[in-house]
């Protein structure tokens, strides 16, 4: 018996509980909505969370992972949480909750089979996933701010062009960078 066997055995239950914990961070009524309707289009949050949880769990359990796929799964979860009503800790913190869920559910089995080393490895992998999630979160927020800038640029594209023609230099560039004639 390895930790991986143990995790595989309890995979569905752990994922279920973890998803519940994630949904628990949504205010009240949403919870019922997210759980009851799994349609990909009428309930994208619920669908995305459930689909990603499986991929992340497999990676954490120690399966060989397709890094691109894992990265995408983490990003799917974080991308939604990054713009919802969460603090950064709350947005990324859901990944650490997987540790708690595993500890709660497998404590006695781990003790019984002496799998503490394995558990530590699993928890380290969760740390890795959380670090990746941190990166995703930062990237999402950065993109959000870039989007505001881009919105402005697009909105005024032709005005900027006109201004540049009148000024005969690129708008927004510091004067010092002006090529010396």
């Amino acid at each position, binding site marked *: 018996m390895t930790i991986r066997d143990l995790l595989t055995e309890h995979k569905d239950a752990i994922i279920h509980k973890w998803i519940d914990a994630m949904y628990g961070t949504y205010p*009240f*009524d949403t*919870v*019922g*909505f997210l759980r*009851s*309707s*799994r*349609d*990909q*289009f*009428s*309930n994208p949050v619920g*669908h995305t969370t*459930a*689909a990603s949880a499986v991929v992340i769990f497999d990676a954490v359990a120690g399966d060989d992972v397709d890094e691109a796929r894992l990265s995408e799964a983490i990003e799917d979860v974080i991308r939604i949480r990054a713009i919802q009503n969460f603090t950064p800790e709350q947005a990324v913190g859901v990944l650490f909750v997987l540790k708690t869920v595993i500890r709660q559910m497998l404590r006695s089995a781990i003790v019984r089979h002496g799998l503490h080393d394995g558990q530590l490895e699993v928890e380290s992998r969760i740390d890795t996933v959380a670090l990746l999630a941190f990166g995703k979160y930062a990237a999402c927020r950065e993109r959000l701010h870039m989007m505001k800038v881009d919105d402005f640029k697009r909105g005024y594209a032709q005005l900027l062009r006109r201004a540049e023609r009148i000024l005969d230099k690129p708008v927004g560039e510091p004067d010092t960078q002006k090529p010396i004639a």
Partner: protein
Amino acid sequence: MFISLLAVIALGCIAWLGAASGFQYLIGVVLPYAAVLVFIGGFVWRMVDWAKSPVPFRIPTTGGQQKSLDWIKPARLDSPFTTAGTVGRMLLEVLLFRSLFRNTSVEIQKGPRVVYYSAKWLWLFALLFHYCFLLIFIRHFRFFLEPVPFALTAIEFVDGIMQIGVPRMFMSDVLVVAALGFLLARRLFSEKVRYISLANDYFPLFLLLGLVGSGIWMRYFAKVDIAAVKVLTMGLVTMNPVLPEGIGAAFFIHIFLLSCLLAYFPFSKLMHMGGVFLSPTRNLPNNTRAVRHVNPWNPPKKYRTYAEYEDEFRELMEEAGLPVDKTSEEAAAAE
């Protein structure tokens, strides 16, 4: 929720006590007359009040392709261009709850199992409730008509075709309770619906359950003296009320709750029965570009005219070679 339940129980108790302590004439004759008057008066008043209010704009919610080019097939019912289409849309809406049915439309699923079931059930049970209630309402005409028309007997025969029990069990009785139960259960167990529900959402449900329950109790269990009841009801419709002896308390509870429902109806959300016909997003054709809609209170036009615009920008416009109505010289000369 509890307040609504208590209110309905209290109403039932009042009726029971009243029937037991000699207020039978009040409950069996006076109140029904009063309730019917309030119902008719209230209903008409509400409808007239709504109908009198103006419809400034023609704003149908279009549920399909508009009528535009000849070779593009329009959605004649979901986006009606003609009056006939609009009537069709309203019929679908009123008779078949078209918009609620829409909820069942296609979903692409990746997740493990069924979804969106609540919406589909809502349509089904809502429809079931309304039609059973209508059927029960029609069946009750046997108490107001003498002789009982053949059509009514036929309806009763079909309704009781399962031939269970004596007297025959009507399917509509069972289904209406089931439908009300579903509508109530939704409010109690769907978090979403519970969150939005008010006391005045629960009250009519409990009232209807009480009404239907007392009716069922009367027919199948208490087995009140039907002949005596008919004497009373015929008296009521012929404006010659009599109060025969020996009608059980169950009947008085039933008719009291009915009176409450009738009196409550015009002042509650139950008025959706009338309101649905007046909803401007449904009962108007989608032809506003073809036929002008007139706003009865259309305010006078007030806008910045071209002349004002040109006055402000004339020189810039001339400089840019844009045509002007008045040149600078003309404008200067006019001043």
